[in-house]
């Protein structure tokens, strides 16, 4: 393994269940508040969920993006504006998405006449689906729209799955150090609150484990060097012992936990304090690593931690783990 490369985090924005701005959410985090609410109508197998409380601003891009995609575009726009970085060929774009989260309500008109044997599906309603249905559910539609809206034309990729945020961060840092770009916009979003996701997670035993599904969109802007800015690195691992291997990469150890999904709360590396992000915000899927990076940077910058470095660990599924490491040098 080569020496770890880091990047400077110079701007951020998010929409989390704790708040729509970084300052507001961090204030609630410091106050020990939790975002989980009871919602009999929307929670299905869960007693509590952690939804975003606001709706995205009206946007002409609603043609192509559903609710979480619009939030992702909002935070990407805000983070890039706050960074002072313009667009162009030397600015990269790296995106993380949790999955399709299909918004099947778009398809109700097509479902009604269908039969179990699938006969004549086109005539039985599929032909009436909105022409942009597929575009609205493409894995890289946030990436595409953000690129066009923000004129970000450098290297980039979209990553998928529970560790997608960490993978996007890692790819951005790699591209910065390869010299392919001068700045990177990283945006990740996910919602675990779609009905079919809640049903699935319920079947997997999440409610009994006390896990609260949530949703978030988060974006950061990274550059190679910026004096005084928090420095960030990200990794992911798969297979048995993934969490422990990641923790060992930063010279620490992960505290064993019976429930693997609780490890991101229980994992502690020496030198590092821990703020129970997942407990406060709920599980935010593919957005986790970027949310962790922002929250840890804020805590270190505000000297809320008595250390200069902090890590966020996350096990998105058994054997799939990610780690972000944030350090403030000054």
């Amino acid at each position, binding site marked *: 393994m*080569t020496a770890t490369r880091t990047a400077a985090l110079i701007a951020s924005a998010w929409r989390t269940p704790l708040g729509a701005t970084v300052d507001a959410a961090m204030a609630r985090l410091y106050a020990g508040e939790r975002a989980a609410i009871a919602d009999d109508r929307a929670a299905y197998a869960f007693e509590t969920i952690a939804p975003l409380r606001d709706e995205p601003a009206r946007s002409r891009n609603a043609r192509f993006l559903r609710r979480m995609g619009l939030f992702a575009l909002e935070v990407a726009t805000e983070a890039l504006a706050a960074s002072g970085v313009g667009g162009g060929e030397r600015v990269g774009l790296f995106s993380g998405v949790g999955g399709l989260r*299909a918004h099947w309500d778009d398809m109700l008109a097509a479902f009604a006449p269908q039969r179990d044997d699938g006969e004549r599906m086109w005539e039985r309603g599929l032909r009436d689906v909105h022409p942009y249905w597929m575009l609205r559910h493409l894995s890289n539609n946030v990436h595409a729209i953000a690129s066009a809206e923000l004129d970000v034309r450098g290297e980039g990729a979209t*990553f998928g799955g529970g560790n997608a945020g960490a993978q996007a961060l890692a790819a951005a840092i790699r591209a910065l150090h390869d010299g392919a770009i001068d700045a990177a916009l990283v945006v990740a979003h996910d919602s675990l609150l779609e009905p079919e996701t809640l049903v699935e997670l*319920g*079947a997997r035993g999440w409610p009994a484990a006390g896990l609260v599904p949530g949703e978030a969109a988060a974006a950061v802007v990274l550059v190679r060097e910026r004096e005084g800015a928090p420095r960030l690195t990200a990794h992911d691992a798969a297979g048995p012992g993934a969490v422990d291997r990641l923790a060992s990469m930063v010279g620490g150890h992960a505290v064993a936990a019976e429930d693997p999904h609780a490890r991101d709360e229980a994992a502690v590396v020496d030198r590092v304090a821990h703020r129970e992000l997942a407990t406060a915000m709920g599980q935010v899927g593919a957005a986790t690593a970027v949310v962790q990076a922002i929250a840890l940077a804020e805590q270190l910058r505000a000297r809320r931690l008595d250390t200069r470095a902090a890590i966020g660990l996350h096990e998105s599924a058994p054997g*799939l783990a990610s780690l972000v490491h944030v350090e403030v040098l000054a």
Partner: protein
Amino acid sequence: MTAVITGVGAVSAFGVGARALFDGLAEGRSGISRIRSFDASTFPTHVAGEVPVPHVETGWLGDALGNPAIADELGAAGALRDRKIAWGLIAAREAWTHARCDEGERNAALVLALGLEQALLEDFSGIYEPGRIAWEREHGEGVRFRTPVDLTARAVHTLLGLHGPTTVNASACAAGALAVAHAASLIERGAEDIVVCGAADSMINPLGLGGMCRLGAPSPRDELDACRPFDRRRDGLVIGEGAAVFVVEHETRARARGARVLARVVGWGSTQDGYRATAPRPDGAAARVAMERAIARAARAGVAATSIGYINAHGTGTPLNDPAECRAIHGAFGAHAVHVAVSSIKGAVGHLMAAAGALELAASLLAFERDVLPGTANHQERDPECDVDVIGETPRAARVDALLSSSFGFGGQNASVVLGRPA
């Protein structure tokens, strides 16, 4: 540190196996056929680059993988109706075996590009209520409304017994090429010394085909020659499915274990158009920069632009893509552009979406393996707007030292990869 390809596996409209792909392309055949995996008779198009396996049976897949347990598990979960899972597993097994990987290679990382999560329309008929979907009626093991985006990657990880990290690239039609580029960059930086990488996708199902038809992407002509890249009469794409997976490793490592090198991955580059969600940048400017970056990286690895003798183009056969891509080629290669042969295999195998770039890189290996450049099925009358040396329907015998493959995704995600002939 040079990354080299030491194993390849492929599943395509020509059948299961890289050899089927090579043979089909070398013989100038087309794999486009009438859709057989479901009743598409009432859809606007009935043709596709469908893998000639109408239904993926658990027993068949178990035999193909030499691992009935994984096939049984996926079958029991209803996951095998998402065809890309089977194609990805089969291609990964073939690449692993082809590269003669063993216990010493199980620390490999995995970088897999995948398309949309798959849902099956008929699954919803049982829980539809007027105006709503009664999700609460479905619970427990029966939940199968979609296959998680990373399910194929997790299954490949398990099948091969890998210990390394897993990355899922979801960059639409550029994803397959980006997965290979990602693997090569990990090796170049010394972060990994061996990576299993590639892509799998299938949209040949009611929702996939129906969604694409509503979007107007497929050719309106319901004919076997529906996709005609760079042709004056081109009017749209034809959907394909399949997978291509590679073993990419550090050249020193490969030679030390006696692995045969199929190609060197010497250059890669990516950009975004920053233009529109629904159309490529007409001047091809961002695609050109992706090519230039790949060419520049190859040059740093000792492979000059003038040694690139073949381009496997994205070449969708859509009115907008092909001329923009040709402008990008001229911009990136300058005076050398007229000396580079160009072809697209999409007329023969269809557009594999997320897997397109990976399968096209696999197809490009034909140039090194057999000194044959694939042809462009259904290309008969070159569009003057596509002013490049398009290889027609007949494959071209030629020896090239390096080649470039490009893939362009929805909304303008562009990727180019340069392969060099093994020393």
